[in-house]
């Protein structure tokens, strides 16, 4: 299959940088919110509980939206290199994101909404201290974000179906099932990053549908309080959307590995049958892994809990193992130079593996009994988000900047950035892990001991992350200002 036409690289890059810059700007703001909360849990300053929960709601939705927006920008560009994409659709989806974020901010800043980003029914409605309009603004805001996401998914799905001749072609079914015949015909399977885009689009559409179903139901309940909603149903759909949305950030960012590491190592990352099978696993299981959020719900069928346990393993383990194995082979004896780009991409793999392992542990039922709703939960997802997704994103940004400028950063900058972002991040998540293992509950404005002590250490780590990121931002601006070069760094 030949591409129908290919998007002009300048257009693809403009869309990508718009998305990434917006995502990283929101990320930096939310980082400040995160530090203010962790410092307050440490007792360094006091944030009154109502404000704490408003900030926690903002931080949760803000961070995830930031990472989704950055990831979608990268994927859009990578897909646009394979087939024609209309940039107007990308900007339209972007407008929905911006409108959604604006509504969410309004609901929090003047409105003081505080039922958390998971907005579990009936929390946004019962016994609240914020006006009902704030609940409405939050619900409409999150629905707009979901709509933006679904528009993006629809565009990418359509483009990939046209480019690879249907769903079978996109998912490389013939390549896997009739490998020899496929090779004889001289056909090529889609490159690895296309699986990341396709799985995001397909699972995104399913998860978005579930999210909008519960979202619209909650908006109706907000307008008409007589409408009944089954809370267990709402919880299932909320997590189907929420868990998938949060997880997909990782699968989007992995595309940076598939394309970025080959640039650094000057070797190609090829599609292989095990890689495709691993992505099939992710496609099928990432949307049902969410049942692990309902282990403690006595009324949920036991069989679904077992499905959740198995799906959690199958969604994460194969694709992590195969991607990391492929990445290590790529780097091994390649003579790759350590630049900020390659360094972030590689350290991101460590965050992904550690965060993934901690997640798998938590989704194993006998462990979950002890770890459920403790700080172990934010520990694992901060590891794979901050030390995985964020690092992959930064790595991808720097690989592009270094390639464009034909220059890279000095050793001092690399050490400062690495120690700050990776080292500080490790200290920060360690605070969560130890507290979680000690049984400190999550989502407490004021934590029981040893929470505050560990929160103090974690806050130091978070401040180091901030300092590291400032160095990174300075370096990014410096590289971006250098004239374009044709010589590789």
């Amino acid at each position, binding site marked *: 299959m030949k591409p129908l036409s290919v998007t002009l690289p300048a257009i693809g890059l403009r869309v990508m940088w718009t998305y990434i810059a917006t995502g990283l700007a929101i990320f930096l703001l939310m980082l400040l919110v995160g530090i203010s909360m962790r410092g307050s849990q440490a007792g360094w300053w006091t944030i009154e509980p109502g404000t704490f929960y408003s900030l926690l709601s903002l931080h949760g939705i803000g961070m995830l939206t930031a990472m989704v927006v950055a990831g979608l920008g990268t994927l859009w560009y990578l897909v646009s290199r394979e087939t024609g994409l209309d940039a107007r659709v990308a900007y339209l989806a972007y407008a929905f994101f911006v409108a959604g974020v604006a509504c969410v901010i309004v609901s929090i800043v003047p409105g003081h909404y505080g039922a958390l980003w998971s907005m579990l029914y009936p929390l946004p409605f019962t016994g609240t201290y914020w006006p009902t309009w704030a609940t409405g603004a939050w619900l409409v805001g999150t629905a707009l974000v979901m709509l933006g996401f679904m528009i993006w998914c629809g565009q990418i799905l359509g483009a990939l179906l046209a480019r690879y001749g249907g769903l079978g072609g996109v998912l490389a079914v013939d390549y896997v099932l009739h490998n020899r015949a496929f090779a004889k015909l001289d056909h090529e399977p889609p490159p690895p990053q296309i699986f990341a885009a396709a799985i995001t689009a397909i699972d995104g559409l399913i998860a978005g549908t579930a999210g909008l179903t519960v979202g*619209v139901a909650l908006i109706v309940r907000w307008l008409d309080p007589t409408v009944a909603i089954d809370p267990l149903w709402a919880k299932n759909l909320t997590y189907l959307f929420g868990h998938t949305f949060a997880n997909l950030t990782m699968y989007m960012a992995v595309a940076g590995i598939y394309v970025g590491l080959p640039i650094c190592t000057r070797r190609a990352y090829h599609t292989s049958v095990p890689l495709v099978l691993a992505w099939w696993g992710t496609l099928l299981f990432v949307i049902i892994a969410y049942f692990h959020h309902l282990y403690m719900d006595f009324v949920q069928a036991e069989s679904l809990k077992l499905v959740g346990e198995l799906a959690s393993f199958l969604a994460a383990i194969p694709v992590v193992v195969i991607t990391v194995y492929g990445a290590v082979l790529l780097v091994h004896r390649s003579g790759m130079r350590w630049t900020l780009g390659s360094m972030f991409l590689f350290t991101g793999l460590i965050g992904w593996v550690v965060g993934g392992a901690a997640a798998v542990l938590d989704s194993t039922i006998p462990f979950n009994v002890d770890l459920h709703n403790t700080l172990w939960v934010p520990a694992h997802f901060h590891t794979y988000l901050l030390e995985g997704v964020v690092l992959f994103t930064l790595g991808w940004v720097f690989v592009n900047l270094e390639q464009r400028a034909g220059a890279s950063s000095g050793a001092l900058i690399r050490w400062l950035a690495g120690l700050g972002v990776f080292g500080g991040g490790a200290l920060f998540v360690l605070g969560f892990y130890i507290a979680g293992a000690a049984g400190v509950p999550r989502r407490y404005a004021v934590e029981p001991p040893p929470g505050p002590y560990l929160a103090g250490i974690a806050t130091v780590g978070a401040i180091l992350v901030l300092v590291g990121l400032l160095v990174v931002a300075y370096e990014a601006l410096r590289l971006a200002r250098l004239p374009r070069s044709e010589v590789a760094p």
Partner: protein
Amino acid sequence: MRRPRVVGLVVLGVAVLVAGLPLLRGPIELPVTQHHLLHAALLVGAALAGVLCGRRDALRRASPAWIVLAMIAPILAMLLMWPSAYSFFEQHPAGHAFEHVGIVACGFLAGFAGERFAAGVGWATGGSAVLMALLAAFGFGVAPPTAVPIAAVAEPSLQPGASGRRNTGASSPAQPSHGAMIYATNCAVCHGTAGEGVSGPSLKDERTRKNLRQTIEWIENPAPPMPKFYPAVLTAADVRAVATYVQTL
């Protein structure tokens, strides 16, 4: 190109005819779940018709408006399924039929606009409309099943010396206590009507984990995600009454 369109129009015609059924049958009293499932069936026909009619030449660039319409149409269909107890549309056969025609139009639009945007996308957006209705059937306008009628449990005595343990309700079986009433209106939705736990944890045998004083303290100052009802919604006396009730579960 023309054949699928003709089939699509026939399917659409059938869907519109089925949508008009309430005109023949008069007011229909159906449980919400079944009603949503019938809406889902209507949407299957409508979305399929939309996909068949929406096919286009793949090489022409589509307007971005199509994808927005395709994504918004399922939401509009959901809004038309508003399961209000006093819905005007539901109670009048003409209104009901009108509502169904609206649902069919949204389903058609979801499939049609998606397919106009890009070949294959209509299946996804039409499927999204159907999936929404199917999912809605199990919780949108559907109250959670009740396990034990609250009237069966009365408040135990708070007198010193009274056991304060499980109360069989034998003393006043007909009257739910004040605590039980508060529990039913504020707590049961998360903790289950019999304290069996729904989205919130089970409160069965909570007395083995917290005594009355600790239960009161928790209700007055809960940790999220449990909402804080005191003092805005419940008075101190209400909190005591419901805590006492919880001790009996």
